[in-house]
């Protein structure tokens, strides 16, 4: 009796109950249908931001283990900056400060190219395009994705760093003693071994990001949480709306964490 996963059973029963409601209760059903588009956007946002974050993380993680001062300093600064700021503030900051500043920089660069005769001839098209960029070209969904990716990139960097540092020193030395350069040793020897060790934490961060994507509702991005707010406002069905939203998030995260556990077990066997 002690070993039974009672919590899982209760969770499953609650899920079944809500599923039953969605199928049979009109308020639940309407909420569910309305929220479907939000699930779609939540998944798209998470997938896109995650791919970018994993890439940024790999690059910054390599910087964190580098012996060279410049990549080490830049990536460490990035990681420390991000980790000290709440995710919600990061999202707002990226959406309303970083992106507009980026657009101004692109405008400025384009204008500069047009003023340099040597460049203006060959690069006229791209420079013109850069000058014409406006903040209106970047919608809130994109800004939110950029914000999530920058924020999570810092956490992924630490995951990769830990993974790389967990590989015995002798591996790098053996690779180098064969004449491989640092990058070849990383690519063929260190990273393939490190990746297996970081897959579970990377998977867990994917789940964390799926949950944090709800913060994009603060930017009025029409993802699952935002649609929940809208549904509540138009139907006044508070209880039904948030039950359904919660049910949908839980379904996604529970399924995903089962997947991660499976992956963990697979990797442990090899």
């Amino acid at each position, binding site marked *: 009796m002690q070993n039974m996963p009672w919590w899982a059973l209760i969770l499953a029963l609650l899920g079944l109950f809500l599923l039953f409601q969605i199928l049979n209760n009109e308020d639940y059903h309407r909420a569910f249908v309305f929220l479907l588009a939000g699930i779609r956007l939540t998944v798209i946002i998470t997938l896109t931001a995650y791919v970018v974050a994993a890439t940024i993380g790999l690059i910054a993680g390599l910087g964190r283990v580098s012996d060279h001062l410049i990549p080490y300093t830049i990536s460490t600064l990035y990681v420390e900056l991000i980790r000290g700021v709440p995710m919600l503030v990061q999202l707002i900051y990226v959406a309303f400060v970083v992106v507009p500043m980026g657009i101004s920089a692109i405008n400025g660069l384009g204008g500069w190219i047009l003023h340099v005769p040597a460049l203006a001839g060959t690069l006229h098209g791209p420079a013109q395009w850069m000058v014409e960029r406006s903040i209106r070209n970047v919608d809130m969904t994109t800004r939110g994705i950029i914000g999530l990716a920058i924020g999570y990139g810092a956490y992924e960097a630490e995951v990769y760093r830990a993974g790389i540092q967990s590989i*015995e020193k002798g591996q790098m030395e053996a690779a180098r003693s*064969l004449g491989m350069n640092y990058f070849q040793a990383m690519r063929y020897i260190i990273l393939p*071994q490190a990746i297996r060790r970081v897959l579970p934490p990377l998977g867990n961060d994917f789940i964390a990001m799926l949950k944090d994507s709800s913060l994009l509702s603060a930017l009025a991005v029409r993802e699952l949480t935002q649609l929940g707010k809208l549904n509540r406002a138009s139907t006044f069905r508070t209880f039904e709306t948030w039950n359904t939203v919660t049910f949908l998030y839980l379904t996604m995260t529970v399924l995903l964490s089962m997947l991660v556990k499976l992956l963990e077990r697979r990797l442990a066997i090899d």
Partner: protein
Amino acid sequence: MAPDTQRATRFIQQREKNVNEPAQEPIIIVESVYKRFKRVHALSDVSLTVQQGEVVVVVGPSGSGKSTLLRCLNHLESVDGGRIIVDGIHLTDKATDINQVRAEIGMVFQQFNLFPHLTVLENIALAQRVVRKRGDEESEQVARDLLDKVGIPEKASNYPSQLSGGQQQRVAIARALAMNPKIMLFDEPTSALDPEMIKEVLDVMLALAQEGMTMVVVSHEMGFAKAAADRTIFMDEGRIIEVGVRDQLFTAPTHERTKLFLSKVLH
């Protein structure tokens, strides 16, 4: 043991012929090298030359700087003073492409350091492709030939974790040989092995010595030194204390410190 001794005798006779030939430029020159780790003087004023085809055995107590000396020879450690010239190339020069030099120097580690995510065959083939730019077929063929040579052709598609320690170390030797190095460095290649596996590794090393490979070997295996060493070096506290021709260091040590050390390791 008997065939080994015969082989060794023949080999030493060959060596003596070589010694009478006109001297050529040494393949390794170590000139007054210093190396410090914070407070520890790992190497102090170490000088050493190794001729092509020579087998040098290095012994000494723990912490005496044997590994550090070896690691300086392929620049896994940089020196703080003095210079090292390998095959005419100054390792201390900024302009030196260290990767190119390392490809000419094979290294075998105490802990084997095989790549656990690759099969035995891939362990031996990888650097050939990446560094030597050999094709898949050629590098695989070289790998198979070397596995034959070290006596475990049947293990090609196994992973390192499926091999015994002795087999792993032989794969590590094959992996180093695959680069066609001019020099082989061995850092206590048998001290992580169970006693019954030591011989299979030493036999491979002995065969290599007899083929005329230049070797610097950190090892306390007297049998190997007897059979293969042209010179034996005793190190203590970062210095070379005594150098003996062939295995004379073991049979007739002159320095007190050498005698003391040998009385402890030999039984």
